[in-house]
């Protein structure tokens, strides 16, 4: 089994390489460069800068030198944040994004799962319709809208009341500053998890083995918790894998709206500034997260379903 996962990790290496390759050349295709800033730079300075960052070397040479550095764990210098390397920026931003992401994920599972499952257990009742309807809304409204609404509500309308919340900024991760962004981040995930778990629980309740469990005279609770639940959780886990990778590597929208110094915001800044190395760095970290998350999903499958064999 462990050799299976070791192999999966190895297969991740070429995947990661493809991401690097694709991303590197795609970035260079985009018009503009890292030094066309607000204030025009004198041509001599620009030439100096380009030479220092090897931007005038042939592209393939730049690529291989980047790759070489990468193998040594060096993401290179940031073009825009001149005193920092990309590694340093990621080391600063990633913990912030992960903390927010984990909190949001935790909340989403804690709320979404019971909502979806109880809706399935009371199918076609008012409660079920409410959960289905609200989760639909939660899925279709984009985070930049919920973000703005919450900022408006808690930052503006409720100003000078006890419910006022900071509508942005990080303040070194003060609890009050986290509430709104984590909420905005969690809402669509609550909706997705509720929706998926409701559907899969309804499906599980129709299974023949659930009927067998009922025919044994087991109490309803036992039938649900012992026999139906594990099967119903499979699709939720499938969803949570990539979703976790996504949420942990920082939401660009949420971090931008709330001015949170996570790697999602660095990514947006990097893309706007053509900060090639920064964008590459964040993308590679994100891709690595996705690969690892999928492997973890596979491991959880093995726990939920004894039929899963790793070979």
């Amino acid at each position, binding site marked *: 089994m462990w050799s299976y996962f070791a192999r999966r990790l190895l297969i991740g290496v070429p995947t990661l390489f493809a991401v690097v390759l694709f991303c590197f050349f795609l970035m260079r295709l985009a018009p503009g460069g890292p030094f066309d800033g607000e204030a025009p730079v004198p041509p001599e300075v620009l030439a100096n800068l380009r030479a220092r960052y090897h931007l005038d070397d042939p592209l393939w040479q730049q690529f291989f030198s980047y790759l070489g550095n990468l193998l040594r764990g060096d993401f290179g210098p940031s073009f825009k944040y001149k005193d920092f390397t990309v590694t340093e920026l990621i080391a600063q931003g990633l913990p912030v994004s992960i903390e927010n992401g984990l909190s949001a994920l935790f909340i989403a599972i804690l709320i979404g799962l019971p909502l979806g499952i109880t809706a399935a257990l009371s*199918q076609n009742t008012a409660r079920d319709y409410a959960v289905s309807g609200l989760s639909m809304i939660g899925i279709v409204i984009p985070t930049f809208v919920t973000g703005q609404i919450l900022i408006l509500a808690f930052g503006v309308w409720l100003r000078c009341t006890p419910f006022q919340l900071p509508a942005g900024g990080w303040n070194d991760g003060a609890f009050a500053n986290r509430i709104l962004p984590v909420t905005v981040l969690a809402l669509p995930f609550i909706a997705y998890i509720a929706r998926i778990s409701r559907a899969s629980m309804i499906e599980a309740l*129709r*299974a*023949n*083995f659930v*009927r*067998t*469990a*009922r*025919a*044994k*005279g*087991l*109490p*309803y609770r*036992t039938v649900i918790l*012992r*026999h139906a639940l*594990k*099967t119903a959780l499979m699709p939720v886990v499938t969803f949570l894998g990539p979703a976790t990778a996504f949420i942990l590597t920082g939401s660009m929208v949420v971090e931008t709206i709330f001015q949170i110094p996570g790697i999602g915001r660095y990514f947006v800044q990097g893309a706007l500034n053509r900060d090639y190395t920064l964008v590459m760095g964040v993308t590679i970290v994100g891709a690595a997260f996705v690969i690892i998350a999928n492997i973890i999903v596979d491991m959880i499958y093995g726990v*939920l*379903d*004894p*039929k899963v064999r790793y070979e």
Partner: protein
Amino acid sequence: MALLDIQNLTVKFATQDGEVSAVSDVSLHVNKGECLGIVGESGSGKSQTFMAAMGLLAGNGKASGSVRFGDTELLTANERTLNTIRGNKLAMVFQDPMTSLTPHMRVGRQLTEVLQRHRGLDNAAARAAAIAMLARVQVPEPERRFQMYPHELSGGLRQRVVLAMGLLCGPELVIADEPTTALDVTVQALVLELIRELKDTQGTSFVLITHDLGVVAGLADRVAVMYAGRIVESGTVDEIFAAPKHPYTKGLLACTPRLDDPPTVLLETIPGQPPNLQNLPTGCSFHPRCVSAFEPCPVKRPLLVPAGNTLNACFLNHMQAAS
């Protein structure tokens, strides 16, 4: 007094394209220590009759009529009452062993939980009892099988596990839905022998739902023949098999190959298809396929009434009985 007494049971399913009458006005009873065979084509309502009795109909199904088990009316009983009876005094062994076991639980746990629920046994005692029961239903190496997950067992083994599950608490009545279809003949013979033994020594009653008329002939005391959700003929096995009166029963018996048939004999089949339960034929449901149909058959429905020593729903026999 009958142990199980079903009166005028009707089961309807609501579906997108209308109401399906799976079971119509079925009355039957099972006495203590007796084995009732239920036969009929696929879709004739055999399983759903007893699903309804167990309170296990699918969400879109609705049952009316009366099902009494001992002193309890099952159709109106609440889940709590049902749960003290199901798996305990009244057990059902389901038709589809491949999907009837919980895939993520070891079979051992699925067996012991019944004993723990109804008998309050501790782990060790439940384990011993479950392994003993596996051995009784002819599961080889029961200790090893006890540790396995359902997907690690063959269809025949799963069928025996499902049967063991039904027998664990020593129920008064076991409803066995096709309990031996996936078994090879020698194991089948041993399992049927066990059923007979339980019947004779413990006084356990059985409902045996099957396509295999040979099994019914060997094991059942009485038999009910179902067609399109109704019982069309019922009586003792001896009488029905010796002298079937309903044309459908005659057809069914003629469909069964016999070992002493010369190899040149062609198997007979009943012409046509079972009817659409959403849109049953008028009169007798069987008349479009019946070789003996005459004037009243498409017009009126023949009631199930005594004809000789058996019950019978066919105008042909009603006339003979009258004349």
